């Protein structure tokens, strides 16, 4: 029995590429049954995601990033790398993933392993707009990376027939 695993998509679905995290959750859950994993659209709930994050042994996060890569680039960051990359940076949101994980660590209930799959955003200004074609194309790569991470954690991804 694999340990509890949370796959979390964060971002705002009303705002073009900012919504790629929740969109990836949507596609992943349509494609696969993943026993032992919980798939959650976390929206922009920040600290309010602590209840589910602190209960997870392993955490996979999908999010839009702006790290200076070409739009559509998929980055996979593990544990300490997440802190290193985001140290000093402050998202416009008061509780970033950094704060969320820091808070979980502070109460001694942090996931043992954390992987962030980030997709470099192209357009984050278009209110009400769809994900750009560039980022939509990158979603397949992000999903492939997610599959590899989840299988590596001993989870089975069972293709849905419907």
């Amino acid at each position: 029995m694999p340990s509890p695993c949370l796959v979390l998509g964060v971002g705002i679905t009303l705002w073009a590429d900012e919504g790629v995290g929740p969109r990836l959750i949507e596609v992943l859950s349509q494609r696969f049954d993943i026993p032992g994993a919980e798939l959650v659209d976390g929206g922009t709930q920040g600290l309010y995601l602590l209840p589910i994050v602190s209960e997870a042994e392993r955490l996979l996060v999908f999010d839009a990033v702006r790290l200076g890569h070409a739009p559509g680039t998929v980055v996979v960051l593990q544990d300490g790398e997440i802190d290193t990359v985001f140290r000093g940076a402050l998202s416009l949101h008061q509780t970033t993933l950094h704060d969320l994980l820091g808070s979980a660590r502070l109460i001694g209930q942090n996931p043992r392993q954390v992987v962030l799959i980030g997709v470099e955003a192209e357009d984050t200004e278009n209110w009400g707009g769809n994900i750009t074609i560039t980022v939509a194309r990158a979603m397949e790569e992000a999903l492939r990376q997610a599959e590899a991470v989840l299988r590596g954690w001993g989870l089975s991804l069972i293709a849905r027939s419907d």
Partner: protein
Amino acid sequence: MSRTTPNGFVLEETSRRVAIDPITRIEGHLRIELNVDDKNVIRNAVSVGAMWRGLEVILQGRDPRDAWAFVQRICGVCTGVHAIASVRSVEDALGIELPQNANLIRNIMMLTLYAQDHLVHFYHLHALDWVDVLSALRASPVETAALAQSISSWSKSSAGYFKDVQTKLTNFVGSGQLGPFRNGYWGHAAYKLPPEANLMAVAHYLEALDFQREIVKIHAILGGKNPHPHWLVGGVPCAINVHGTGAVGALNIERLNMVREIANRTREFIDQVYIPDLLAIASFYKDWAAIGGGLSSKNLMSYGEFPSHANNSSNDNLGMPRGAILGGDLSRLHEVDLKDPAQVQEFASHAWYKYPSGNEGLHPWDGVTECDFRLGSKGKIEQDRLINVDESEKYSYVKAPRYKGEAMEVGPLARLVIAYVAGRKDIKELVDGALRKLDVPLTALFSTLGRTAARGLEAQWAAARLVETVDDLFANIRNGDINTANTEKWEPKTWPTLAKGVGSCEAPRGALGHWIVIRDQKIANYQCVVPSTWNASSRDPKGNIGAYEAALLGTPMVDPERPLEVLRTIHSFDPCLACATHLYGPDGAPLASVDVL
């Protein structure tokens, strides 16, 4: 050179300009620019909402029954309140009556949110303005235990417990990953708590972090899921089944008991941890009962909330009454009518929007959201970086909402004072009790400390009311009423060609209104006036300043480069610059800065 605004505040544009961008530990993006005199006292304050919120544009042409699902994505902490204002606006437009169970369940959702949101705000967004985390490392656990036991009967108060917390904190700080404690002004001279009070507060910061996880289970039980609980026009999407057979996932006695149990524990936590901490911390900062008052001693407004009975909008039916106070006259409550075109209006003279009517105010039903970014002639941008805005022209994405032409403060302080003035006994007892314990007069409420205290007292009120409301729901179900939704007017063909409605809600952080116009079964116009639009308001054509700007005036600062005092007052409003983006910047690119110009 100084001038007095029509609403009675003196502004001096002295030589030193300080920009704080962004204000940390809030939702959304807020920039504050200040002018300080040679004694570091704030003489002019400019509140700049630096993000455009174009939600209204997205909703046009959509099905009004779906609007709640869009608006609850506006922001990370206000999900439920936008959803409730939205479904209420559609119900008002179409004349849909609400079953009593749905009314009670919505009240339970909202009271739960008050308890949780106020708790999280106090400990996780605001306490660090008063509590020096690093000083807690020097505390004596034995003396901390003595302090904790002297103010509360809460069980976790032994010296061993505080020693453990201190060790945990030492290890955490030692790891170099400060997480939520980074960006703090630790060691700042404005921190006044002894190390033991700091350690006690940090211990409760951790307990509250753990405990808030419990409270939201109520949202998951009644809203189907959390995050993003479900809502429904005409009711709540939550069937009641007390017989144990039939609908799967329906609300049954076992789940209702769970709600009751969580409600009781929430009340206990607030009574025994939050309130004693609040009073203990406040007793060291009584000077802040004379700082940061701003508009609060003049103009306050509440739309009213918590209807006891469904479909009754009279003030007597509301747990928190509706009304407005103008010019500091506490002997008179003014009526608030959100449909009166002359009462609530929004102005865009100093905001980055374009109105066809120019500088005139628009009632939200006639509201327009058209972006118009122009920096102003004295505004400066250098290398893509905003240096300063020009507040004599357009300077913010926050419009200027006005009630009968006046800038208003909204939020827990406004609600409590209005309930107090309306003669509500439960509120009067709560407020008078706290004032007695702190030995301060009623006017002390009109301050930064008063705002923070009012929020705590309201959390206490909400938790007590939550327990009662769960009992009311039990009683109503026991009387045989299991109806939770009215679907009579669900089908668009039952709707008129043109319908207009208003849905209001008192969000934890203040008065929230959604105005909707439905034409041919689709949304033709949708305008949200959110609490932080009132409080973070830009200036209006007459030059009246809003609540944040007013509250900062006259504040003495120790060091403008470490603007802890500004954070105290701004955080006391529980700001939420309703938008929320989640993008990360690359390593080392500081998006936060304090510039002294």
